[in-house]
C-alpha cells in the first residue's frame, strides 16, 4: 500500500480573545495529529462533537490554515504552498460537506455550481459544460438537472450535485465530512453505494469523517479515533471493530449493535470536557475507567500495539485484562448484543 496523504503532527489552535494584558489562550481543536492514508483506500475518522474532526478535515485542505505540522500528498508538502503551486494542488483534493442544501449556493443553478471549480482553474468555457455533464453522469443525474436550483432538489440529489462538484476537477483525494448524516437511511444507502462505485471507477482516495460508527465500520478500510483534538487509536477497520484497544474506542463501539465480546463494553458517564480546557495528561483520563495516576500527568504517545494497530494509552495491559480502576467511570453493558436487539 502506497501512502497518498500523510498527516504529520498537524495542529490547529484558535485564539480566544482575552483582555490585553492577560496571557493568550487557545482552543486546541486539533493538537498534534499524525496518520497515513493509503492510495485508493477509504480512511475513516470517528469522533464526537468537540473532537475536532471537522477542523482536522478543513485544516488538511487548508480551508483553515494549520497552526503547525504538515500535510504531505504524493511526497509534496502541501501545507505551505502558495500561488500557482497551490492552485495546482488544490485540484487534487476536494471537499464534500455535511449539509447538502447549504453547500450549494441557492442562487446558482446546478450547472453553475458544478462548473465553478473549473472556472477557478481557468478551464476554457467550451470544455466546461462537457465536463459538468460527465460529472453529473457519474453521480447518476441526467442532463435536465443542469438548470435546476437547489431548492428544487431533494437532499439526496443535492448531495449528488455536491459530489459532482467535488469530482469535476478529477481529484485524487476527497475529504467527506459527514456526507450522509443529513439524509434518510434509504438515501444514505444509495449515496454510500455511489461513493463506493465512484471510488472504484476513478481510483479515488477518501477521508471519511463521521460520528456514525456503523457507516464508518462498513465503508472504511482503516479508521482513526479522535477525542478532544487527539487521535487515540488508528487501526484497520476490521481490526478496530474486532478488538478496540483504547478505552474510548471501546466505549464508542459499545454503542453499536452486535459488537465483539473481546473487550468489556461500557457506557461513558458524564459530559465530554470542553476543548477550551482539556484535562492535563491524557485527555480522556477524567472519564476513563482505567485511569491511573500517570494518566493525569503525562500524555500518552500514539505507539504501535501490534502490526498496523496504533494506540495512545498508558494502561493497555489493564484495559486488556479488564481491571477497572475508577468505578465511577464504568457503567457496564451486556456483552455481544450490547443490550440491544439485532436485526436479521
Amino acid at each position, binding site marked *: 500500500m502506497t501512502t497518498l496523504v500523510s498527516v504529520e503532527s498537524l495542529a490547529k489552535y484558535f485564539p480566544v480573545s482575552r483582555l490585553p494584558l492577560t496571557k493568550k489562550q487557545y482552543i486546541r481543536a486539533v493538537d498534534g495529529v499524525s496518520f497515513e492514508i493509503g492510495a485508493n483506500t477509504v480512511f475513516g475518522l470517528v469522533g464526537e462533537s468537540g473532537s475536532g474532526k471537522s477542523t482536522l478535515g*478543513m485544516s488538511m*485542505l*487548508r*480551508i483553515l490554515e494549520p497552526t503547525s505540522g504538515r500535510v504531505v500528498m504524493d511526497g509534496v508538502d502541501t501545507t505551505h504552498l502558495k500561488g500557482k503551486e*497551490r*492552485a495546482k494542488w*488544490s*485540484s487534487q483534493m*476536494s*471537499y464534500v*460537506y455535511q*449539509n447538502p*442544501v*447549504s*453547500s*450549494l*449556493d*441557492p*442562487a*446558482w443553478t446546478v450547472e453553475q*455550481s458544478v462548473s*465553478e*471549480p473549473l*472556472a*477557478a*482553474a481557468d478551464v476554457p468555457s467550451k470544455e466546461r459544460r462537457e465536463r459538468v455533464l460527465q460529472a453529473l453522469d457519474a453521480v447518476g443525474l441526467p442532463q435536465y438537472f443542469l438548470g435546476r*436550483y*437547489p*431548492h428544487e432538489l431533494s437532499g439526496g440529489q443535492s448531495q449528488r450535485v455536491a459530489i459532482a*462538484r467535488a469530482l469535476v*476537477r478529477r481529484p485524487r483525494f476527497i475529504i467527506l465530512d459527514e456526507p450522509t448524516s443529513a439524509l434518510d437511511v434509504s438515501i444514505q444507502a444509495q449515496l454510500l453505494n455511489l461513493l463506493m462505485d465512484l471510488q472504484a471507477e476513478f481510483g479515488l482516495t477518501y477521508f471519511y469523517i463521521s460520528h456514525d460508527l456503523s457507516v464508518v465500520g462498513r465503508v472504511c478500510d482503516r479508521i482513526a479515533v479522535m477525542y478532544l483534538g487527539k487521535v487515540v487509536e488508528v487501526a484497520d477497520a476490521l481490526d478496530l471493530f474486532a478488538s478496540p484497544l483504547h478505552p474510548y474506542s471501546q466505549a464508542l463501539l459499545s454503542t453499536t449493535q452486535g459488537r465483539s465480546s473481546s473487550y468489556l463494553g461500557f457506557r461513558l458517564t458524564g459530559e465530554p470536557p470542553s476543548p477550551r480546557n482539556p484535562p492535563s495528561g491524557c485527555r480522556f483520563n477524567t472519564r476513563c475507567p482505567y485511569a491511573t495516576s500517570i494518566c493525569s500527568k503525562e500524555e500518552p504517545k500514539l505507539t504501535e500495539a501490534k502490526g498496523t494497530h496504533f494506540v495512545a494509552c498508558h494502561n493497555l495491559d489493564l484495559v486488556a485484562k479488564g481491571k477497572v480502576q475508577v468505578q465511577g467511570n464504568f457503567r457496564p453493558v451486556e456483552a455481544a448484543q450490547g443490550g440491544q436487539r439485532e436485526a436479521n
Partner: protein
Amino acid sequence: MKVQGAVGRTVGGFARTLRPLFREKMFVAGFIMVGAMVFIAVFAPWVSPYPAQGEGQTAVTTCPQSAAGICPPSLAHLFGTEQTGRDLMSRIFFGIRTSIEISVLVVLLATAIGLAVGLTAGYFGGVIDEALMRVTDVFLSFPHLILALVIVAVLGPGFTDVLYALGFTWWPSFARLARAQALEIRNRPYVVIAKASGVSNRSILLRHILPNAISPLLVMISVDLGAVVLAEAGLSFLGLGVRPPTADLGVIIAESANQITTAWWYALFPGIFLVILVLGFNLLGDSIRDRVDPRLRGFIGAPMGLPSVKNPLAPRRK
C-alpha cells in the same frame, strides 16, 4: 462578463421574490399606488393639463376672484392654481416627477455605495472592516439637514445639492446591513468551498455574496424610497432643495403654508399625493419584509410561505 452574471442573478432573484407577492393585498395596494405615481412622473408632460406651466414656464391665468392669482379649483384648473397662477395639478405632477427622480437616484447611489462598502467590510473583516466601518460611522452621524445647509452654502441651491446632501447621508444604513449580510454569508459552506477551490475573492463577492445579500436590502430600498421623498420634500420646504421654477412637492407645500386658511386646495392636493407616494412605498416595503425573512433560509426563490387557509385546525364542530 462576470458582473453581468451577478446582475442577472440578482434581477432574477428580484423577479422570483416579486411574483408570489402579488397574492398579498398589501403588496398589490402599494404596487398600485406607486405604479400610479410612477406613471404620472414618467408621463407628466402628457398627463398634465398644462405641461408648460407644470414645468415652470411662466403661467399665467388671471384669476377673477383673488388678486394674488391663486384660483380655487374650477373646470379649467381641477386643483386650482398656485401663487404664480400656474395650474396646480400640473405643478403637482411635475413635482412628483422631481420627487421620484431624486429619490430613485439617491437610493440607487446609497445602495451602490452601501453595498460596496458593507460587503467589502463584512467579507474581508479585520483592518479593512474596521477602517470602512469608522468611515461609515462618520457619515452616519451627519444629519442630512445640516449637511444640506452646508452644501447649499457652498455650492448654491439646486437639484444636485439635494442629491449630494441626501446621497452622502443615506448610504451608511445600507452599508451596515450589507456588512451584516456579508458576515453571515461568508461562513456558509458554499462560500467556504469556493474559496477552497481557489475562486478569487472578487468572484466570490460578486457572484456569491452579492446575490445572496440582496434580500433584506430590498426591504430597505423600498421603504427608503418613500423616506427619501419625505426628506427631499422637507429640505425643499425649508428652501434648501430645488429652486423654482422646478416643480417640487415640498416647495409647493411651503408656499401653501401662508395661505392655508384662504387657499385650502393649495396645501391639500400636494399633501395627498405626497402621502400616496410615501405610503405606497411603505406598503411595498412592508409586504416584502414579511416575505423575505430568515424563515427563508437560502435565496428568495425558495418555496415561499403558505397562503393563509380559511380552515385552520380548529375544533371541527364549533
